[in-house]
């Protein structure tokens, strides 16, 4: 097991792992009854609450700092979005018909921000971006292979669309700022191609659209900004570090 964590480069505390298992279980059982989704809530927030109460001590100081930082980032992003949405709904007299869709969107943003921030702490900008791009490429390839099992030509052609992700991952290591710029452009391209901009419109929170933005546009855009901002810093084995005075 240690080897797997070493390879992943992120060894979560056992409380985090137990929480993750509860989230999966909660979502799986929600197919039977939505009441089970409370298990996902317990899994997401339970370990953190227990740690803050001093009842769970499963993290070292680096893990603790990463958790708190990720939580703070999630608070900033989700809070900001909440205010924008309140302004949008109250000033434009837009009616929110399905509040649960909005709540789901908040949860997805919360999880995504927490996860992305954690990855950054554990892996650093360059490695985080490279791995996200490789994961995107693999996901895209598998998605297209499975979706075109009956048509080898279509399968081949559409799987080629995964290649840019791998190329960007390769570029990110060598020319991080160039890759960052390309990623921001790609994110903007997808934003319009997949009609993501329609999140602001008469049907702002159509089921699924918000999730696509968070899970597709979000990682690409955030990765691009990261690469532009950090460049190649921290991607080498430099023994220099930046310390902020608190």
């Amino acid at each position, binding site marked *: 097991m240690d080897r797997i964590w070493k390879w992943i480069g992120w060894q979560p505390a056992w409380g985090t792992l137990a929480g993750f298992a509860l989230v999966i279980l909660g979502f799986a059982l929600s197919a039977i009854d939505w009441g089970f989704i409370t298990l996902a809530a317990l899994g997401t927030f339970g370990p953190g609450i227990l740690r803050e109460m001093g009842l769970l001590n499963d993290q070292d100081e680096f893990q603790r700092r990463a958790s708190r930082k990720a939580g703070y980032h999630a608070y900033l992003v989700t809070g900001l979005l909440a205010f924008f949405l309140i302004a949008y709904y109250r000033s434009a007299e837009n009616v929110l018909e399905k509040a649960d869709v909005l709540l789901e969107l908040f949860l997805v943003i919360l999880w995504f921000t927490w996860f992305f921030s954690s990855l950054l702490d554990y892996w650093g900008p360059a490695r985080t971006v490279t791995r996200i791009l490789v994961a995107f490429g693999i996901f895209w390839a598998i998605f297209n292979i499975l979706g075109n099992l009956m048509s080898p030509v279509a399968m081949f052609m559409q799987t080629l669309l995964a290649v840019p992700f791998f190329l960007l991952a390769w570029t990110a290591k060598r020319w991080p700022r160039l890759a960052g710029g390309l990623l921001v452009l790609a994110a903007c391209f997808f934003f319009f191609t997949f009609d993501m901009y329609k999140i602001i419109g008469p049907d702002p929170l159509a089921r699924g659209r918000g999730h696509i933005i968070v899970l597709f546009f979000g990682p690409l855009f955030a990765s691009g900004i990261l690469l532009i901002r950090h460049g190649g810093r921290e991607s080498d084995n430099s*023994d220099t570090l930046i310390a902020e005075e608190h």
Partner: protein
Amino acid sequence: MKPKHELNNQLKLHRLKAGDMTQEDLARAIGVTRQTILSIEKGRYTPSVALALRMAKVLGVQVEDLFELKEDDHG
């Protein structure tokens, strides 16, 4: 605006000097995860004073040998 200081980090050097100690060995000796040692060595994490002291003790050096302030570029 928060003032920033650059630190020179010699942890990896002293870890290897101390009988080719691995990150895992050092982590176990001071009660943290290997990821913590890696993050300190990579410069992504500045340890607490207590942890820095524990590392120095295990490696048989002074904290100043592991970390030192660079010239402050910001005056």
